[in-house]
């Protein structure tokens, strides 16, 4: 137990040293050195938001025609939103996808836990991979938007999926496709309107390349979303297109 106490004072000393370093080079937000991005202090400036900020940013996502978002977040991109909005989405996907299956088959309820790793992989790759690709493309084409700002933009655009996931509980196919279309439209408009100011400085072809990338990624995300997690559920026949080993197609009840 003494060793436990000793380890903690070492950790606390390290945290204090890190803060002392930050005070020294106060003009420079980032740690120097190649492995600076592996430390905790490198990411601390990106968590500099309060609850009201986060709520305001999420609200701005649902109103794509007022491009306030980039103006709000230009100086203060944050990483809290992208990470935890996606985590909430993973929980909701698991909950609601399984609730849908529970309702359709009364006797033999099997719980498909394969949704958790699938949802995690899909959401986090899209939420962090797409902005990475987009940021690289934009840097090459000459747009002045930093990597973290793109991540922030994309992460918050995922919050359109929050009410959509809750509404996906209902079984009506037409309704699901309607809200998925609304979601695609909303998030694409949100992204494009917010990038518009930056994109207008470019030539036409470059602008369209970026817009094309954005549209493709959003379409594929929403299609995946619908087909993998919320596909057609009929009376006696649970049909999912997941690739987890536990789900097997069952015979339709006659």
């Amino acid at each position, binding site marked *: 137990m003494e060793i436990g106490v000793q380890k903690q004072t070492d950790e606390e000393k390290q945290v204090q040293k890190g803060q002392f370093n930050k005070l020294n080079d106060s003009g420079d937000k980032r740690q120097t050195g190649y492995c600076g991005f592996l430390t905790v202090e490198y990411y601390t400036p990106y968590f500099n938001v309060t609850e009201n900020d986060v709520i305001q940013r999420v609200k701005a996502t649902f109103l794509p025609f007022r491009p306030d978002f980039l103006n709000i977040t230009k100086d203060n991109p944050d990483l809290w939103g992208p990470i935890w909005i996606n985590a909430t989405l993973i929980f909701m996907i698991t909950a609601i996808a399984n609730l849908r299956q529970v309702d359709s088959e009364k006797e033999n*309820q099997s719980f498909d836990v394969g949704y958790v790793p699938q949802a995690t992989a899909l959401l986090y790759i899209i939420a962090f991979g797409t902005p990475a690709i987009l940021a690289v493309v934009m840097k090459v084409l000459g747009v002045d938007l930093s990597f973290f700002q793109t991540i922030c933009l994309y992460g918050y655009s995922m919050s359109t999926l929050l009410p959509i996931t809750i509404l996906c509980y209902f079984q009506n196919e037409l309704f699901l496709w309607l809200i998925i279309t609304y979601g695609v439209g909303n998030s694409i408009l949100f992204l494009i309107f917010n990038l518009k100011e930056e994109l207008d400085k470019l030539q036409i072809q470059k602008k369209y390349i970026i817009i094309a990338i954005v549209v493709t990624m959003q379409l594929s995300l929403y299609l995946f979303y619908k087909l993998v997690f919320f596909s057609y559920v009929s009376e006696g026949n649970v049909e999912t297109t997941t690739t987890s*080993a536990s789900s097997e197609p069952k015979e339709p009840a006659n």
Partner: protein
Amino acid sequence: MEFEVQENQANNSIQGVINLQPQVNPVQAQHQEIPIKQTDLQVSSTLEESVAVTLLRDLRQIGVKLRCVLVPTMSTNNARELRNWDLWGPLVFCLMLALTLSMSGNNDDGPGIFATIFVLIWVGSFVVTLNAQLLGGKVSFFQSVCVLGYCVFPINLGALFTLFFSFFYLKMFLVIGCFLWSTYSAVGFMKLLIPEQKRILALYPVILFYLFLSWFALIV
């Protein structure tokens, strides 16, 4: 336990002789040798005890910490107790929860559920603690992981209840009660260490974490 022994062996100049008598060896009668001699006495006495006594002592410490964490009174005793973090308790509760849920009859993917719960608890605690640190809280990393792990215990109880009862609304009521208990204890510990405006930003992941686990306990 072995850690202690190694540390003392590095400082100890007597090789291979277990000194059972608490008197100072006249050859090494220096002032700084005396604390080493006292821990040397402890080391030798813990080496000589039976395995059952060692295990019972560890279990008793887990029990003491559990009581500190789960009975939500914020006395200074509690705070001091919690500073001696250990990861045995979280491991025990994590394994219990994963085993209970993977063995219940309702599913055909036992190993998958075990793996998911195990990874969820450890990666979840890690990420929640990292989040609290990034928001500027003065949280020591392993202490926070330790408290989050101990607060999984009520969800363990909830999972055991759901094994025995089959009426859905009763299960839901019990699991919600356990979820509220876990969250209240964890939040009580963490909210002292975060600055005022970012409190909900740090506490929401904790709530999400226990919500996820309670959901698993209820549905599986």
